[in-house]
Every structure is written in structure tokens, then in C-alpha cells.
């Protein structure tokens, strides 16, 4: 019986899946070797801590009760489901994120529409000024806002000089629950609207002028032009920017931590702040991690929507 040649044996092995993989690796070893250090680094600083973190969410792990550490299955998640504080934090997060996203979009839209006007002088200067909130270090900004919004802060001083409040009855921006929520939304909007502006401005710049000229010739007024031309054409970018903004805002720990500490009376307690409180202050690391995992799953869901929309809007017509 004739024995298969080496060539024939190789060709035969390449017919299997494992063989195809090996063949691929043999031909393309160098690129894999070159990215290996990055993968090792990422594994060490991202994947491994993430995996360990996720496992932590399935343990009872209180830092000051190391003898009681044990795997407890889904108990942390069950506790989160039954917890009034978690439900409240989730609701607050939705309200605050929703408020910031909508308000920052509207302000960003107005700013973008204004700055898109070709005849506007010193456009670049205005654009740079409006970017200031976005480039300010967030914690420094939030601390400044906390000072400005407190009873003797500059906001109350200005309102007093405008005759809108009395000196002895300032507006308690951060001390009354509903006002505290509004203040958090306002500060969050201030911090995040420049990103919306930049994104919408880019989309507006891509709209051909002849569409507006044609509409004007047909007798459309500015509102009709905006409704029928501008809005439909910036919807794809708007949706994607809004989703990204929602993800970033949801994870913004510093905003409520600095401004209100989650108060008053938990009015501005968000899920991410609650996770921090549980993990580092209680210090029930297991339960705190489970809240962070819940937050991560919610954001992964938003992220999946983002990717789907991105591929839909990027696909050729």
C-alpha cells in the first residue's frame, strides 16, 4: 500500500477544522505575536479584574468579616431585587439620566443651530468658549457648582441682586429634594451639552445648502425647513449621541457624590452611588459589586442598541 506523501498528509490535515486553524496560525504568526503584549496587558488590567469583580458579585464578602466570606449564588441579586434603596436608586438614575440627556440635547441643538450659521462672526471663538464645560475636570467643576448653589453661593447672590429672592430666604438648591434633583440635572446638562453641540454641529454641516434653498423656493418657512429637512437628517447622529450620553451619564459617579451625597433623603441617590456606598462604606463588597454588575448589564443593553443603530445608520442605502 502506497504511503501518503508528506504533502498529501499536510493537505489531509488541513481539511479538518483544527488543521485549518493551525495553517492559519502558521501563515500569520507574526501579527499575533505582535499584539500578544497588548493582549497580556489588557488581560492583566482589564479582563482579569473584570472577571474577579464579576465573581465578587456572587459572594458574601464583607471586608470586616473575612471569616464569613463565601459564595452565596444569586443572594446578592435577590437582595438587590427586594431592596427599596436599589429600586429608588434605579428610579432616580432614570430620572436624572433622562433629564440630563434630554436637556443637554436641547441645549446642544440650540447651540449647534446657532453656530452653524455661516454669517455668524467669531464662530470659532464661541465654539471654543462653549467647549469649556466639557474640558473642565469634572470633580473640580462639581465642587465649584456645589459652592455656587449653596445658600450663600453666588447663584443666590445674583438672584438676590436681581430682586428674585430675599437675602434671608435663599433658594435651597441642594437641600430640598425636588430642587436637588433639578440642580443635579442642571449641572449635568452644563457639563455634557458641549458634546451634543459638537456632534449635532458636525451633522448640520453635512446637510447640503441646496436643500434649504429648494425649500425656500417652495415657500417653506424656517420652522418647516427645520422640521422637514434638518431634523430628519440629524436623527441618526442624534440617536447615537443620545445613547452614548446616556451611558456616560449613568456611570457619572462624581456628579451626585459631590453635589448632594445622594441626598437629601436619597432624592438624588443613583445606582452607581449606591454601589459605591455598599462596597466601600458599608463595606459589603459583594453586594456593592452585584449592583455594579446590574449597572453594567443595563449599560451593555444600551451599548448593544447603540451598535445596532450604528450599523443601521452606517449601512449604504
Amino acid at each position, binding site marked *: 500500500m502506497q504511503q501518503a506523501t508528506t504533502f498529501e498528509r499536510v493537505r489531509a490535515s488541513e481539511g479538518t477544522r483544527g488543521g485549518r486553524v493551525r495553517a492559519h496560525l502558521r501563515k500569520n504568526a507574526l501579527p499575533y505575536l505582535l499584539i500578544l503584549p497588548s493582549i497580556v496587558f489588557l488581560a492583566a488590567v482589564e479582563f482579569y479584574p473584570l472577571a474577579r469583580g464579576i465573581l465578587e458579585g456572587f459572594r458574601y464578602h*464583607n*471586608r470586616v468579616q473575612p471569616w464569613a466570606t463565601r459564595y452565596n449564588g444569586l443572594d446578592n441579586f435577590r437582595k438587590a431585587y427586594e431592596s427599596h434603596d436599589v429600586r429608588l436608586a434605579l428610579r432616580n438614575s432614570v430620572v436624572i439620566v433622562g433629564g440630563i440627556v434630554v436637556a443637554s440635547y436641547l441645549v446642544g441643538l440650540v447651540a449647534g443651530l446657532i453656530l452653524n450659521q455661516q454669517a455668524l462672526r467669531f464662530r470659532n471663538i464661541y465654539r471654543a*468658549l462653549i467647549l469649556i464645560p466639557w474640558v473642565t475636570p469634572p470633580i473640580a467643576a462639581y465642587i465649584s457648582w456645589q459652592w455656587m448653589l449653596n445658600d450663600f453661593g453666588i447663584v443666590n447672590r445674583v438672584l438676590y441682586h436681581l430682586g428674585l429672592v430675599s437675602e434671608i430666604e*435663599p433658594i435651597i438648591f441642594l437641600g*430640598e429634594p425636588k430642587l436637588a434633583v433639578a440642580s443635579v440635572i442642571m449641572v449635568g446638562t452644563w457639563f455634557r451639552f458641549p458634546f451634543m453641540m459638537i456632534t449635532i454641529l458636525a451633522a448640520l454641516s453635512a446637510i447640503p445648502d441646496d436643500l434649504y434653498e429648494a425649500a425656500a423656493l417652495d415657500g417653506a418657512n424656517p420652522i418647516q425647513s427645520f422640521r422637514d429637512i434638518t431634523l430628519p437628517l440629524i436623527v441618526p447622529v442624534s440617536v447615537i449621541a443620545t445613547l452614548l450620553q446616556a451611558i456616560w451619564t449613568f456611570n457619572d459617579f462624581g456628579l451626585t457624590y459631590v453635589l448632594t*451625597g445622594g441626598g*437629601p433623603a436619597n432624592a438624588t441617590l443613583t445606582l452607581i452611588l449606591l454601589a459605591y456606598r455598599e462596597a466601600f462604606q*458599608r*463595606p459589603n463588597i459583594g453586594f456593592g459589586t452585584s449592583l455594579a454588575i446590574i449597572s453594567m448589564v443595563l449599560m451593555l443593553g444600551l451599548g448593544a442598541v447603540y451598535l445596532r443603530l450604528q450599523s443601521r445608520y452606517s449601512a449604504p442605502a
Partner: protein
Amino acid sequence: MAVSRRVYKWLGLVVIFAVLFPALTLAQDETAQEDVTPEPTLAPAEGAVELQYWDMQWGNPIFMAAMQNLVTEFNRTHPEIHVSFQQLSWGDYMQKILAAVEAGNPPDISGGDSGIAFNMAAQDQALDISDLYKEWEADGTLADMTEWAYKKWDWNGMHPGVTWQFDSRVIYYRKDLFEAAGIAVPTTWDEWLAAAKALHKPDEGVAGMALPAKQGSYDTDQFWMTLVLQAGGAIADEQGNLTINSPENLAALKFEKEMVDCCTARGTAAWSMTEVLRAYEQGQAAMAFGGGWYIADMQRNAPDIFAKTGVLPVLIGPGGPEAQHIVSFANPWMIYKQSKHPEEAKTFLRWMMRPENLGKLYEAEPGAKWPVYKSLLQAPVYQSNELIAEVARQTVENGVDYWYPNNAGAVGIGSMGTSLTDIIVNPVVTGSRSPEDALADAQEQLAPLFEQQGG
């Protein structure tokens, strides 16, 4: 096409929103930090045992320089040992220490919050320094210490740390306002409440009492805990079980609620001690709860208010004269069990605890640190002005902290974080829950932290 005026108006609003308000904060006049450079540190001698000492940013640059200088002096006088001092920030010190502990490379000695030694002991990371306590008992050091400074650390058959300084809370008051209203300085809760009501003049922008009540802030629970101690209450019992839901603690909480409702500024629910101090310095409060650092701040920023300020005596609450206490956090130094040179670490700790050496730290920032030794009450730093002298005296005679009188619940107490603020004080102050509900909820939520104490 020219841009319409309306567009410029909208643009102006947007720019103002973006820029103007934060820009105003940059225009605030900041007191320049003094540039203080510590003495040059020494290089370790050949063969010297090297120790790592980590401690917090306990004060201004002058204080931190004094801390480094003290370490340098130790190194100079003990060439066989070389201590390297590393400063930790309050924001992430526990994460750093825990990471070092888990990596098997903790410092040899550290400071930290007032419960750190218990937390480390619970994780079997704190060296028992009972032998040092025996020495101190024999040579009279303990007799000179305030009782709580050493008694606090007698825990579970060991001593995991030793107090090196107290951080106290008192009530400052405007002597001139009291005199003008003909009100005697209060000595009891009832007199205090009556004074606050009489001096509360919202039409004139003056609150009777300024206190912190912000959620998520450790400042907030300190006022309530002062009341708890004076009501004869406590956080844990002799067996280490949580006793937060007790009649004494309820009385304290109801008193605070009454004080807030009648006699504080409307924004109190969002105030930390920063706002309290600011209100007091601006003449917007007749009394203010706060720490020793208020004194130096008033001297610097509101000298006219400083001149008219006194310190209320330790008040008698429902707990009677036996419960006349103020909150004074007994902050420890501790040695880690993983230290490869425990004897040398004890030599360092022994040396740092000498009154003459601790005195150098206390002198560096008057009003920031309060003495553990009774003999230091007469030191010039504690006689430098009336306010400092009074706070020092109250610390030595009446100062205790949350672990008083039963430190059996030490680990649980140290692991509550801002729970007292978040579950109890802030919700009650804002009126969103009743004192009874708040305490019952806190008892249920926090009880697991007090189980299986000490392992």
C-alpha cells in the same frame, strides 16, 4: 444673510451658561498655601532596618512637614533603623492599605481613621502591642493618658493600636449675641434649645444653631452622636450587639429634629461642616457645631467673629452628668502583623508616643490635634487662646468616640461608613421618615455588621 439679533441673544445665553458661572468661582480669593519644606531626610545607614510608615494628610503643610521632621529626627537618633514616611490621601487610603495588605506588602506602621486598627485586627492584620501597654503602665505613661485614649484599644484580649491624637467636636457660640439677648450660657439641653429659639432670627438672617445634616457626609452623624453620648446612649452593648434602636438614641434623634425644625437655616439638609463654618463666620448663626480647625479659620478669615466667640460647656443631656461627653475621635497608630521587623516598629512607635515628641506635632498646627496626655494641657500650644484652652480641656476631661463605652462592637462600628447619616439623620432631618422608623430600619440593616465579632 446677516445673523439676526435674536440669534445673538440665544448665543449669548448659551455662552453665559457655559462659561460665566464657573468662571466666577475661579475669581474667588484663595488663601495662599504656605510653602513649607521639611528638613532634608537622611539616607539609611548601612545595615539599617528599613521601615515603612504611612499616615494620612492630617493637617496643613506645616503639620505635614512637622510629621516628616519628626521621622527624620527619629532616623537621626536611631541610625540602626530607617523609617520612610509616606503620606496617604483621605480619598483612597483604605484602598491603598488593603491592596498592600493583600499583596503581602503592607507598611510596618500606619495611622488612619479612628477604627482602622479594629478593622485590621478583624482581618488578622494588626500586631498585638499589649507588651507596649505593659511598659506604658509600668512607667506611668498610661496614668498620664486620658482614659479613653488607651481603654478604647483593650479589645478581644489584645491591643491593636494606640491613640496618638484626638479630633474633637464642640459647639461654638457668639458671646455678644447671648449678652445682647440677656441669655445665660446654657449648661443643659433644655437651656440650649431655649437659647437657640431665642436667638433664631430668620428675618435678620441669623440662625439659632448651625449644624451639618448633609447626606453621604461623615460630618452629619457627628452632631447626632454627640447627642447620643449625652443622652447616655451607645451604638453597641457589652456583647457587641448593635443597640442603635434604643430609647436614649431616639431621644437624641428627636432632640436634633426639634433643633433643626425650630432653629436652623433652611438649607441645613445640604450642609456639611464647610457650610456651617461659613455661616458662622458670616455672622449668620448664633451657635455652630464644629471641629478644632474652626478656631484657626476664624482667626484668619473672620477675626471680628473670633473675638466674640466662646465654646459652650459640655452640656448635660438626658444621660445626666455621668454622660457629659463630647465626640473626640481617638485616632490610632498601629503596627501590621506582616511587618518583618516588629521590634523595630515598636521602637519607632514607643518613641513617637513620647509626650515631648507628640507635643511637636500638636504645636505644628494649633487647634488641629488634641492631646492624649493630661500633662500636655499646660503646654503653650494649648494655652495660646481661650478657645483652644477650652477645647483641649473638654477633650481631656470629656472626650470619647463612637466606640464608647463598649468596644465589643468595634468592628461593626468601624464599618458603618455613612450609614448613620444616610439611614437615620438626613432622612429624619428632611422629614422624609420618622425617628422611630429610621432607627428601626438602621437596626435591621446594620445588625449583620455586628455579628460574629472578632472571628
